């Protein structure tokens, strides 16, 4: 009983959010075409560009495959089996979210210098980004109706084939959504690949800024990333199919039965242990080593506390604004089919694979020209977080709203509520746990953000990430370690809550 077309009052704020997300694209168009289409085309079609594109796609393919393997296996083990300590493992599986890719890469690289290049980048990126797959898949596995699996088993299909043919199919949209975030994360990552000295497309864009001081080549290359993102989002939308995901039928959901692991418990525990050790224990251990190497001179608790407070503040503001903007987009994307809804979602994602520097420069461009009072003030930084991380929140909110039966919104409208109030009074409270999860995730990624923060922060302001950058810039790893540790500890809190969250 959903209207065929999204009401204007919902569409308008959603379009506003979409337009904000499209700002970097407008900037890229201006800069890329500054010297004519031919010049831009020439840059995009060099052999080197194609090579970098191939490398980025290769890295993204390997990382997303590995993330799907890690994410789905851990999700299934923790959500659907009698794995001993499942609750603990499910928290541990989300903790890597708290670890910035540059910290993970640094830990691996300093421990195993030979790990540089493709393998090192793939390892570091996989171990920090698999929770993007783990979280939605685990939530789906906990929420799905076990009746389907039971029917499959009763039809003579064995447990493994039932998993492949029924369960895996049911988690496909969740896994695809998470996988998309992983791919975009890999495409936009600069920290890990530069520490691992592996030249990717994004690193090419950074190098272009540093080498030529000419923004046209970097913009032309960025446009390629945008096109790639749009294609990927379209592919992901197709994997969703036409099925609705809200639970049909009233009453409380049946408690999902757990598969008995039996003797397989030992290898299952070993697998969880190995992943956790590599993704959480190892980088924390490396940090511990540097912390221990420090002394009182490198240890400034007052400054650390102040920086942590500032970081929490801007990340919270970023998460709040991103969530508010993502709500109408997520609601439209979840509830309405059609070109407008589709375009909106595409718009939200369009800039997500762009390196932070490009997004930051686009906001520098617009703010310096059209919103100067905001320039290098907190609102602009918070706005940059919203542009960068809108898809993270949209994905979570869209999934959460899909879980809430749309008939309730129809009833609310028939009782005289306008669309925005329906969103506020019915949809959001129903989808609240999922919306909160999206906000928490956004909060974590805002805390870790570096390149846009460096360019757009109010002059003199420091976050944990910028302090980390400053200290490692002079090789003061012992002085950097407390900031890295604080960043991880603070980001671990929402990550922990995400791990505990049951959809």
């Amino acid at each position, binding site marked *: 009983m959903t209207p065929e077309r999204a009401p204007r009052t919902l569409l308008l704020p959603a379009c506003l959010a979409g337009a904000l997300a499209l700002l970097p694209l407008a900037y890229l168009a201006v800069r890329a075409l500054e010297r004519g289409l031919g010049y831009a085309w020439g840059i995009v079609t060099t052999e080197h560009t194609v090579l970098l594109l191939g490398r980025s796609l290769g890295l993204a393919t390997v990382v997303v495959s590995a993330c799907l393997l890690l994410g789905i296996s851990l999700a299934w083990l923790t959500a659907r089996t009698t794995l001993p300590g499942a609750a603990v493992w499910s928290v541990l599986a989300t903790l890597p979210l708290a670890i910035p890719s540059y910290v993970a890469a640094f830990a691996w690289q300093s421990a195993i210098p030979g790990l540089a290049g493709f393998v090192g980048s793939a390892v570091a990126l996989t171990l920090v980004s698999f929770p993007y797959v783990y979280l939605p898949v685990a939530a789906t596995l906990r929420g799905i109706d076990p009746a389907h699996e039971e029917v499959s088993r009763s039809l003579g299909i064995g447990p493994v084939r039932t998993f492949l043919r029924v369960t895996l199919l049911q988690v496909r949209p969740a896994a695809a959504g998470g996988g998309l975030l992983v791919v975009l994360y890999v495409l936009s990552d600069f920290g890990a690949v530069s520490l691992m000295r592996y030249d990717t497309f994004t690193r090419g864009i950074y190098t272009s800024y540093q080498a030529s001081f000419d923004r046209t080549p970097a913009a032309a290359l960025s446009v390629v990333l945008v096109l790639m993102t749009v294609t990927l989002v379209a592919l992901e939308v197709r994997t969703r199919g036409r099925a609705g995901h809200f639970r049909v039928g009233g009453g409380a959901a049946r408690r999902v039965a757990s598969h008995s692991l039996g003797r397989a418990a030992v290898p299952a525990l070993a697998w969880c242990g190995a992943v956790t050790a590599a993704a959480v224990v190892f980088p924390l251990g490396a940090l511990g080593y540097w912390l221990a190497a420090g002394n009182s001179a490198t240890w400034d608790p007052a400054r650390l506390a102040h920086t942590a407070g500032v970081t929490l503040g801007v990340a919270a503001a970023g998460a709040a604004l991103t969530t508010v903007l993502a709500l109408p987009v997520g609601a439209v994307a979840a509830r309405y089919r059609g070109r407008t809804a589709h375009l909106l979602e595409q718009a939200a994602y369009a800039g997500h694979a762009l390196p932070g520097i490009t997004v*930051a420069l686009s906001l520098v461009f617009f703010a310096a020209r059209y919103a100067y009072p905001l320039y290098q003030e907190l609102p602009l930084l918070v706005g940059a977080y919203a542009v960068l991380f809108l898809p993270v929140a949209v994905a979570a909110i869209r999934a959460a709203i899909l879980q809430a039966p749309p008939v309730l919104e129809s009833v609310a409208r028939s009782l005289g509520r306008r669309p925005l109030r329906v969103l506020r009074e019915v949809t959001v409270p129903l989808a609240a746990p999922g919306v909160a999860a999206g906000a928490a995730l956004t909060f974590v990624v805002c805390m870790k953000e570096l390149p846009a923060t460096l360019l757009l922060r109010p002059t003199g302001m420091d976050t944990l990430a910028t302090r980390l950058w400053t200290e490692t810039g002079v090789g003061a790893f012992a002085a950097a370690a407390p900031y890295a540790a604080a960043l991880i500890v603070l980001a671990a809190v929402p990550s922990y809550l995400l791990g505990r969250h049951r959809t």
Partner: protein
Amino acid sequence: MRHLLAPYVSALAAAVMLLPTATACGFFADEAGLVIYSGRNEALVKPLLDRLEKSLGTSVEVRYGDSAELAAQLLEEGDKTAADLFLSQDAGALGALSKQGRLQRLRQPTLDKVAPQYRSRANDWIGVSGRVRVLAYHPDKVPNVPDSVHDLVKPEWKDKIGYAPTNASFQAFVTAMRVLEGEDATRTWLRGLKANNPKAYGNNINVLDAVDAGQVSIGLINHYYWYEKVAEKGAGNVVAKLRFLPGGDPGALINVAGVGILNGSEHRSTADKAVDFLLSKESQSYFADETKEYPLASGVTSTVPDLPPLDSLKAPKIDLSRLESLQQTLTMLREAGMV
């Protein structure tokens, strides 16, 4: 329509209303003082800039970042920039701004403090501290130290060289070679170096450590890494030695960290004072002591032990603004399979 959007309008209104309050509380940057964009690391220059603030008697706001990224930011900001001064890690970023006409001509008395080869030919930026490309070698493994980077392409150096091809200072050196000796000669040299299978490291410190540990025999680095290591570990504990190349060899390039005044600056006289402060004896000594770089202002000499005087060096003569043509260097390094 108005009341339909009420929640959004009120949120926006609240934000707009809070903004001046926050500004009044001093939450945001103070508009009045001098604003510096610094591509040099905060850990390195903050103590000096604190002294600058005291000396100027006005507030100094500093924005730290990567030199190249700050240059890109300054170019996007154009005339609207709040920055008065750009403190850059290298000459290339300053050259790029100069080329786009973003910098103001400096006062002649200021320019006169530094030798012409360490400042812009357009007189719109000036070097503050200098660093020299050198060879670091392991004395036990290298009985005859080469006199030129051109020697390194000889077969005797196969598998013995360490370098940091992704590092900006190595790339600046290659750019210098291109400017000094031409594209073809540089390409040939890079091919020859590559044929000797040099060991690539992430940065100069790694190269020096590798030389010191004897993992490679010789390495291409900046001079101050060695002096910092000596200061940290003591002269007796550093095995590696330095070779300052003679005869204007491109391998002896002197690059500078410098400063320029932005076109949008509304505090020209304060900015001039700030540049003069950076060239004062106090600041120059600070760079010499803290970073082991060469002070560039005339009349100031480094007190770092064993550091050869600046005017004794036989650096190649080059317009440092031309180090801005890094793109071609990168293409060449790529063709050689180094990055």
